């Protein structure tokens, strides 16, 4: 279960207690402002909106609707913002040839023929962070592009355009066995 649901549940509960409690207090007329001064309570809301009431219970009742309704409005868009916990992949390189670069990808997208599209799902990043998008053939990086988070379109995609790559056809061909499981 998404841990944010617990937070939403707690907010809902707080809102419910405020609304139900406010109703109960209004009904019982348990709370009121200083009897002597008879000063009303004034509630200021964003947008120069304010109201006065002799009953703080009424304010409690009205304000309780905010935490009660807000989680409902957020619930439907929650799947669009998957919960991302960042982890670090660490290690050591012994390559005898430097500089070397280390990349980590969840799942690479195989492109099997010319003109095929690709679609790589990545965790949501915020701000001006960037993804490095590589076109790799037989371990050779043929092209490298940058996809910036701020280029995200309305349909939640970041379009990337690789340069066309022309690889000379090989002069020879040989037997290519599938990669055994022990090497994958």
């Amino acid at each position, binding site marked *: 279960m998404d841990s944010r649901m617990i937070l939403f549940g707690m907010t809902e509960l707080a809102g419910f207690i405020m609304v139900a409690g406010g109703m109960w207090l209004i009904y019982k007329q348990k709370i009121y402002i200083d009897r002597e001064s008879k000063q009303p309570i004034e509630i200021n809301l964003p947008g120069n909106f304010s109201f006065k009431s002799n009953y703080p219970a009424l304010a409690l009742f009205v304000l309780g609707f905010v935490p009660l309704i807000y989680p409902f409005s957020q619930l439907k868009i929650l799947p669009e913002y998957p919960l991302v916990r960042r982890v670090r992949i660490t290690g050591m390189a012994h390559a005898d040839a430097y500089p070397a670069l280390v990349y980590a990808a969840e799942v690479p997208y195989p492109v099997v023929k010319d003109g095929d599209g690709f679609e790589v799902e990545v965790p949501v990043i915020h701000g001006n962070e960037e993804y490095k998008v590589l076109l790799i053939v*037989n371990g050779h990086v*043929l092209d490298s592009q940058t996809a910036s988070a701020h280029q995200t379109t309305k349909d939640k995609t970041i379009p990337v355009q690789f340069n066309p790559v022309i690889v000379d*056809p*090989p*002069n*020879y061909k*040989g*037997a290519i066995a599938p*990669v055994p499981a022990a090497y994958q």
Partner: protein
Amino acid sequence: MLKRLLIAFVLAVFALSPASAQGSKDVTGRVFDAANRRGIENLEVKLTPPRNSNLPIRLTSTDQNGGFRFPQVRQSRYLLEVSQGANLLYRSEVDIATASDLQVPLQKR
């Protein structure tokens, strides 16, 4: 009696140790045109050990006679791959323990 047992134990430990089971040796080979057995130069030759074996990946290229050499390769099974740039030409699993002269025939396209 105790001395003999001790010697037998030491010999057994040496015989079973991974170091003696996985010795190193030079591995040579040749990539050639199967039609005329001429060597093919400037091809990339790669030896990949099994995943999690902690053995190094070895990389070299063929000389003008198509020959290649990997010095001091730990005996194990490896994936032998021959490439020309981004094009993979050949792939096969080889056992360095039993084969140290690798022959890679290729056909002209």
